[in-house]
């Protein structure tokens, strides 16, 4: 009997995962366009459906309707394989995410490592897509995105390890339970959160790091030759990634589904109120992602690499060594960790600009003689 229940549970998990990806993608498209619009003193789409809610549904129908042709010089098999692969990352991650108190599809005890392994699929898919399109723009775009995603996975893993060390286990459920009682990791390790969040923005190709499909130089990066539903898959993956990555961040740093009034409404052993809290926190972070995209210009390729290898990764290494030392030897390690992390975090935030300005001024002084003769 319970075998049948397990199968049913598994099936429900898969359906939930896929539907979650598509629904969150559609919601995010409208959410981002409306938030961007309001921050720019305009209205955004408000004609399709009440207040423009059905806009993304209309978009996806249009995307389905559009002719989805492959140019002649394209490597047919890879060209069709890339969009299919790109969704794997977003869907597979939901296996380990604890949505609410009683519900996690499969509580793997290697949750964190599983997350990192699965998200690297999108790098592969973009590389295949860019190479198969046989177009200068998409080739350059694909190579750029591969370099960017690989070099930002390193700080992401280092940040995750710190969380794993603090929580004592790799399984996400243990991480959430460790943070219960409002002792969220973001209060103890703001520096780790800072590193993880910046790396996740780069992983999503968004905000200041959206080099692969930067409009002004590469027209549409790896997506130039795609049209119709194939382009739709790339597009949906980008927006679904927003929610998925925010969910992972919330689980790791903001105490997952924890919130007041946990056991009020329990349905078949699955409590609903924490799910609402979980969603609220996720969409707070999605708002932050959209907010950053609006106000920060795009980085250059060499600056992107320099920022990752010369700043973020050394910071992550220092952070992981210090955290390990504190967890091992410090008596009340939580408070010591909080002190250390907060001091370093504020130092980074405050000192980054002056140091950068000094470096730029020195580079300017070296530039060729400006005056006549």
């Amino acid at each position, binding site marked *: 009997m319970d075998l049948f229940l397990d199968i049913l549970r598994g099936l429900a998990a898969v359906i939930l995962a896929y539907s979650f990806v598509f629904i969150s993608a559609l919601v995010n498209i409208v959410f981002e366009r409306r938030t961007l619009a309001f921050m720019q003193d305009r209205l955004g789409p408000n004609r399709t459906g009440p207040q423009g809610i059905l806009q993304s549904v209309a978009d996806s129908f249009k995307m389905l309707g559009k002719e989805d042709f492959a140019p002649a010089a394209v490597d047919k098999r890879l060209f069709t394989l890339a969009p299919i692969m790109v969704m794997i990352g977003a869907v597979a991650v939901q296996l380990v995410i604890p949505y609410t108190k009683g519900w996690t599809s499969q509580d793997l005890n290697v949750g964190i490592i599983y997350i990192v392994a699965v998200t690297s699929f999108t790098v592969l898919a973009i590389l295949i897509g860019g190479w198969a399109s046989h177009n200068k723009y998409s080739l350059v775009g694909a190579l750029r995105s591969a370099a960017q995603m690989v070099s930002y996975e390193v700080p992401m893993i280092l940040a995750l390890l710190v969380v794993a060390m603090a929580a004592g286990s790799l399984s996400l459920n243990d991480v959430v339970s460790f943070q219960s009682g409002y002792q969220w990791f973001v209060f103890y390790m703001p520096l780790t959160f800072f590193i993880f969040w910046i790396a996740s923005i780069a992983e999503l190709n968004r905000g200041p790091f959206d080099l692969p499909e930067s409009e002004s130089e590469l027209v549409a990066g790896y997506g130039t030759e795609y049209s119709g539903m194939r382009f739709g898959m790339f597009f949906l993956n980008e927006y679904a990634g927003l929610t998925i990555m925010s969910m992972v961040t919330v689980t790791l740093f903001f105490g997952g589904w924890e919130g007041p009034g946990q056991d009020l409404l329990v349905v078949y052993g699955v409590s609903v109120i924490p799910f609402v809290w979980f969603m609220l926190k996720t969409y707070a972070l999605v708002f932050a992602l959209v907010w950053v995209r609006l106000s920060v210009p795009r980085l250059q390729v060499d600056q992107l690499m320099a920022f990752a290898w010369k700043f973020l990764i050394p910071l992550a290494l220092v952070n992981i060594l210090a955290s390990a030392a504190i967890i091992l030897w410090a008596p009340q390690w939580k408070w010591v960790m909080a002190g250390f992390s907060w001091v370093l975090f504020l130092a980074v935030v405050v000192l980054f600009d002056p140091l950068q300005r000094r470096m730029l001024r020195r580079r300017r002084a070296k530039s060729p003689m*400006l*005056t*006549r*003769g």
Partner: protein
Amino acid sequence: MSLQVGDIEIGLAEFAARLEERFAGELTDVALQPPVTVVARLAREKLAEVARRLHDLDETPLDCLNLISSVDNVGSLECVYHLYSFPANLYLELHVEVPRGTPVVDTVSDVWPAADWHEREAWDMMGIRFRGHPDLRRILLKDDWIGHPLRKDYVDDVRNHPYV
């Protein structure tokens, strides 16, 4: 020393006198056009050499070529070089007569790099060739356009409009 504009106080008449005395033989019928311009004529052959000396004049060098206009006075073509001197903050207009039969004149793009595109436009629109110009191509019109539109005797050729 950063570049100053008009730091050498020199009046228009005095500036014209300096030019006349420095380029006695070459610059003919120098006239004043208040408030800031001196107008002069120059023979076609002496252009390259005078241009170099004008550029390197000691106190008030005419170091900036503002514009090259090409005019079709039916008898002959004419190139007008509008030169500007940053130290003196004054303009010099050089009129160079170019015969209609062989509209060729030396280039000044080695003296003033700004002249490059002006000369290409003069060639494109008026049909004046500039001997020594690095790459004298048409700049505004199609590469295979027939004729030079701004000439008074220009008749539009049907081959220029294949799609009409």
